[in-house]
């Protein structure tokens, strides 16, 4: 990453046009990317009985991308991001269950906007603290939201979960079917949209400034970069995307359990991110795919094997592949950034 920073630095001194060209070259689509997104469509033909699982993966991948934006790019370690996922899920769920408005697209927008708004407020708290205190504040906010939802059981259904959600057909045309054709198309499309937005962000000069904050917070003000503003902005965006993924879950499953806000969910998503590789968006997607596929297979046998496996995997990845699976592959292929 340091090389990247110096590269840009030298290029900006040459000419503003050169650095823009460099940013543009970074955002060019590679063959692998196009192949990957085409491959996601193959699920329809090869694994039609796994479409519900596939839509779960797409939802989780979008959530992992939102965490990658703050953790992988801006370096904010968060153990409480399920807060925004759950907010989005409850917002979309309540809109349908209590207000009787089950139109999915407006539901997504509403949930995303609400999560983003709460994220914006929370971001003022987040940028005040660092290190252990930061981890504890994110953890505390996450637990706080969980307890709040539990206490407001007249609204959220508490531990019984929120029921009575009725999601209308998308655009009035595509009804949610039992096999998950609509669910997977819907979640995949939203994932792709969220990915495009995130990709645009991280390949912009703003994304570069975020990486600067991650690498060295103290130097950013020295080069005239208002890093707190940057952090607030990305935290808000990330919260909105997390809310989007939560809303998808509520709409495709027509139920919201208290679990959407749990610490387990916050921790799991960070685990996925680390497995896949932080700071490269595709790491988030790959991590979500591996995590959920392995869990689906292993927890069928015995949930304890699953915990043992994931724990061991985490320790091995941290010790031997600190940049995750994608980072390790990139290094092997000699294409490390």
């Amino acid at each position, binding site marked *: 990453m340091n090389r990247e920073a110096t590269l840009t630095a030298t290029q900006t001194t040459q000419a503003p046009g050169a650095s823009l060209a460099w940013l543009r070259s970074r955002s060019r689509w590679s063959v692998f990317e196009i192949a990957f997104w085409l491959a996601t469509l193959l699920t329809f033909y090869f694994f039609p009985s796994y479409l519900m699982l596939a839509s779960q993966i797409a939802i989780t991948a979008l959530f992992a991308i939102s965490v990658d934006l703050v953790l992988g790019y801006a370096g904010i370690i968060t*153990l409480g991001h399920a807060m925004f996922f759950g907010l989005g899920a409850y917002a979309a769920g309540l809109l349908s269950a209590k207000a009787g408005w089950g139109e999915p697209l407006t539901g997504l927008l509403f949930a995303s906007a609400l999560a983003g708004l709460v994220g914006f407020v929370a971001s003022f708290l987040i940028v005040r603290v660092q290190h252990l*205190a930061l981890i*504890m504040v994110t953890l505390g906010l996450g637990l*706080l939201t969980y307890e709040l939802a539990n206490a407001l059981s007249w609204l959220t259904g508490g531990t019984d979960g929120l029921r009575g959600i009725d999601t209308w057909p998308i655009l009035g045309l595509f009804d949610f079917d039992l096999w998950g054709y609509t669910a997977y198309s819907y979640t995949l499309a939203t994932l792709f949209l969220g990915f495009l937005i995130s990709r645009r962000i991280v390949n912009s000069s703003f994304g570069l400034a975020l990486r600067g904050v991650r690498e060295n917070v103290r130097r950013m003000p020295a080069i005239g970069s208002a890093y707190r503003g940057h952090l607030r902005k990305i935290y808000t965006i990330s919260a909105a995307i997390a809310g989007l993924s939560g809303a998808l879950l509520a709409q495709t499953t027509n139920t919201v359990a208290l679990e959407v806000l749990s610490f387990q969910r916050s921790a799991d998503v960070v685990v996925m991110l*680390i497995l896949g590789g932080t700071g490269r968006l595709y790491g988030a997607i790959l991590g979500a795919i591996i995590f959920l596929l392995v869990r689906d297979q292993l927890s069928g046998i015995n949930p304890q094997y699953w915990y043992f496996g994931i*724990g061991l995997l985490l320790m091995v990845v*941290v*010790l031997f592949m600190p940049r995750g699976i994608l980072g390790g592959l990139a290094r092997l292929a000699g294409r490390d950034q």
Partner: protein
Amino acid sequence: MIGNIVIVLFDGFAFGMLLFVLSVGLSVTLGLMNFINLAHGAFGMLGGYVAVTAMRQLGLPFLLSLPLAFIAAALVSVLIERTLFRRLYRAGELNQVLFTIGLVFVSAAIATYLFGTGQQPIVLPGWLRGSVEIAGLRFGVYRIFLIVVSLAITALLVFGLERTRLGAQIRAAVDNQRVAAGLGLNVERVFAITFALGSGLAGLGGALAIEIVGLDPSFGFHFLVYVLIVVAVGGLGSITGSFAGAALLGIGDVAGKYFVPEIGSFLIYLLLVAILLARPLGLFGKR
């Protein structure tokens, strides 16, 4: 009403003392090496299971199983520290957090494999059961025992840290590791000893906790949050801070659950966030 308040204060203080024993080790090692060890609660769980096994399989009395829990947790922790944790001292917070979370997962799975998911009850000796009546109020004997033991440990820790050679070395290393090393202190050795002592105390806390909160494979996770709150609120590397933080959390937790059961936990977390935002280094933190 006054009676209720006294009982809640008493129970809360006893719970707080339990939290203190569980978390003081983490506070000191965090202050010493800046190593975020989320597996600290797992050492507490280890101590708990060692005590249970010692009492059931070996038929040892409760009081003898306590030091056994301490020694087992200390030995295992120093083994893990020497072989695994030391590689991560310079690895950054995120890697430390993840590695130790991985360790918690693995330890929970091993505990389930060996003992099953059920609670592990123990039978206390007769003189620790029941309660005594003072001025019309009933105080649990075990909780009195807990407070006495914890206060003794606190006195021992404060004395050890203030008056012994090792204590002076630990204080020096916490204040400024580089200068301490420059003066010829073997900081790594000091750290290994501190780590073993701290984890041993967690193991002891785990054994003491069985009667109050029970013991199952989720112990490491469940208490992680409490332990982290104590450390973060009390401030790193401060015994006084941990003591105050633990007492505050214990009393707050019990009082919250007694007087406002619906939002008790909510208030605890609200307090945590508020304290951290007002004082990011904790109530007694210096750095």
